[in-house]
């Protein structure tokens, strides 16, 4: 094939763990490089091509000056994909969105708070139109490969909207609630093969919410399993702050 789609990777406020996962998947699936041409990827190559059709964006938008950069990407790319929890949800960075911004700045930067530009971290879709999302913190490498395959087929990456419990039960995991832990599996989007419960930990919700989640019932379940209101708030804020604030706003 001569017309390999040109692909670029960009990072905003993030740890670059999702891009590292991409590098990892290239090791497992070197044939990916036969299928696409990577023109920009700071994590792996030094060239910087500006002629790309598909943009994968990692990281949340956490300051006004990120916005024109995102808009430039949107102008160039035919398809924009949010890569990972930060780009998808605002990520861990958004925990602070329930706190007064000025206090957060002073806490982090002390008397130099004014030197650093920042605002409420937000998902990329709040700034530019996003065509598809690959969720997770970090992304799941099989899902990344699947998403690229879908794009090559000319369709949008598709991730079934179903709660994590579905995947967890398929694997016949012993529910962590019966082992003294709490888990956000019932309201979290599946696709990671329920990796945390598989290793005995509760899900932290890194892949974001399913459609129409029953947050009230989820809180009730955690309450019944011994969590205080504060602990429940903390659980629901690790990755889900922006989504839950949006639900609250919608009523």
């Amino acid at each position, binding site marked *: 094939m001569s017309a390999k789609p040109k692909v670029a990777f960009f990072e905003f406020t993030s740890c670059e763990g999702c891009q590292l996962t991409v590098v990892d998947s290239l090791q497992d699936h070197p044939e*990916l490089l036969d299928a696409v041409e990577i023109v920009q990827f700071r994590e792996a190559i030094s060239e910087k091509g500006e002629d790309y059709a598909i943009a994968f964006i990692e990281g949340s938008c956490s300051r006004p000056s990120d916005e024109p950069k995102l808009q430039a990407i949107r102008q160039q790319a035919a398809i924009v994909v949010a890569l990972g929890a930060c780009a998808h949800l605002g990520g861990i960075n958004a925990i602070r969105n329930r706190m007064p911004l000025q206090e957060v700045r002073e806490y982090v930067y002390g008397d130099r708070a004014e030197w650093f530009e920042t605002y409420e971290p937000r998902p990329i879709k709040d700034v530019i139109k996003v065509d598809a999302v690959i969720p997770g913190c970090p992304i799941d490498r099989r899902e990344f490969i699947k998403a690229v395959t879908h794009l090559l087929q000319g369709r949008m990456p598709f991730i*079934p909207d179903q709660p994590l419990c*579905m995947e967890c039960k398929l694997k016949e995991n012993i529910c962590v609630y019966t082992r003294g832990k709490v888990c956000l599996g019932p*309201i979290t989007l599946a696709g990671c093969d329920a990796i945390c419960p598989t290793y005995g930990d509760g899900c932290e919700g890194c892949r974001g919410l*399913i459609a*129409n989640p*029953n947050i009230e*019932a989820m809180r009730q379940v955690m309450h019944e399993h011994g969590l205080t209101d504060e602990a429940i708030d903390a659980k629901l804020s690790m990755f889900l702050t922006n989504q839950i604030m949006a639900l609250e706003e919608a009523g």
Partner: protein
Amino acid sequence: MSFKIMPKAALPDWVTWLKNRYRVVGPTARQGQYVFAEIASPDELVLDYPTSVLPPKKYLLPQRETLFTFDAQSMQMKANIEWEPTVILGVHTCDMHAIRLLDKVHATGYTDQHYQAHRQHTTLVSIECLSPCMEHSFCKSMGTLTVPEDYDLHLTDLGDSYGVDVGSEKGEALLQGFTAIWDPTSEDYQRINKVMAEKWPRFSYRLNFDVTELPDLLALSNNSSLWNELGDICLGCGQCTKVCPTCYCFDVRDEVDLSLTKGERTRTWDSCQIDRFATVAGGHNFRSTRALRNRHRFMRKGKYHLEAYGLIGCVGCGRCAAACLVHITPVDTFNELYRRHKKGELLEEAKQA
């Protein structure tokens, strides 16, 4: 067909003997619960297990299964019909009733070749339950505490031996050539009668009405406010259906590799309790609320299956109740409908609708 006695001391040898001929699966311990798994060594088998997380159905209808593979370049398709001669040891009677229903479902209309292939090569060794497996079970109410006739072998724990009912030729084949087994003495017959008589009172009827009334009760309940109440607390997590021995809904997907030439069509267990289940082309969701989805589940379990297949869709195993984090259970649901019915509320709500 016939009745034999196998001393418990001979069980490990029998399992080893079977393993040389079949894939042998049965209940094994996992983190304080039990799962059906391949028995690598006879000491892993726990025949007096309470219940399993997933029912043994997974060997007939695997959680994920490739239906066919395709090659877009050569335009070839290849059906993927796989089977392995398998013995399932220790199937409880409720699960046997569930398999009976699944057999019927998968042989009606378009027969399911994949299911049939697994089923034909599976030999079922069931076991009598002598006391309730857990707080949530209600097999006695559902009429599933005695084994249906579809067993190949049926075991009854007689203390230091097992009573072995031979139900089919497939079952007989599991004993052919195995010598540590003999014909019962009159003492053995007395023992089995005693065990069977003693077990019955250990189980209680947990439905407050006779199960034959359930379909009519549900017919009256279409507009019950109970469904909204369940919908308010339900998480829509799908666990109740994943663990159910009579659920068989699946989702079908095609995936291709990165070269876009080779691919496969797979099916995976689905659940009517999750939000997108009833979403059809164009985006319309005809069961868009958790209330409607709960109603649908209980209607299927207590009414629809009976109408379509002549067998009730719930075998009272209690797995869904044990799995549900918000304590939605068939027993409480059916009893609550019955209570409201007695008070005339169901009729009232039906009239208002």
